[in-house]
């Protein structure tokens, strides 16, 4: 069964450092997402991406965050200068399509990248 893969599974970094989290979405999917879950809190939407541009983003996704699809297979989340409160599990997801009249998108999630900021 096709799956979304994420690397690294766990990253520890110092406050102020840049971090890049990587994701390989399912090959025929066109829509890509990042979500995060701070320990003990809800899974929260960060950003969605389609056709090489951001289609939607949440308030959390401020200027220190960026996303990129540098080649035909990878989808990355960059945090430019990490803060303590960025410590969380970051989930990448992909879907074939967006919500439309025939139903909502069905997302396939990766296993997550746990980021710990010291």
């Amino acid at each position, binding site marked *: 069964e096709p799956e979304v893969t994420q690397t690294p599974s766990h990253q520890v970094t110092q406050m102020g450092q840049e971090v890049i989290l990587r994701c390989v979405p399912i090959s025929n999917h066109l829509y890509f997402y990042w*979500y995060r879950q701070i320990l003990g809190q809800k*899974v929260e*939407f960060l950003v969605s991406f389609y056709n090489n541009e951001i289609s939607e983003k949440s308030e959390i996704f401020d200027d220190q965050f960026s996303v990129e699809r540098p080649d035909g297979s990878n989808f990355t989340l960059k945090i430019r200068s990490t803060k303590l409160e960025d410590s969380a599990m970051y989930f990448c997801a992909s879907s074939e399509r967006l*919500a439309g009249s025939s139903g909502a998108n*069905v997302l396939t999630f990766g296993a997550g990248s746990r980021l710990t900021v010291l």
Partner: protein
Amino acid sequence: AQSVTQPDIHITVSEGASLELRCNYSYGATPYLFWYVQSPGQGLQLLLKYFSGDTLVQGIKGFEAEFKRSQSSFNLRKPSVHWSDAAEYFCARGDAGNMLTFGGGTRLMVKP
């Protein structure tokens, strides 16, 4: 803002017993509703979804959920729980866009 509430943070059931996990969503246009399961070290796996039509939906691993508009609920059920069902379960809603709103999750523990 749309919201999803899972009232039970932890639930413990005996193996073989029935299970019901509660999910309530805030009022809005007919939502698209999902249940995901997360086992330790795994991603969020889709169990089932409701878009429209029959309000009782069947999913993988023997799970089902019933959409009740009058109660704004989408509870997940399983008639007989297996030890391998121990995991965290998330209810989520999607609206006319590509963002999912998740509930806080319910951690299920299964006693032998």
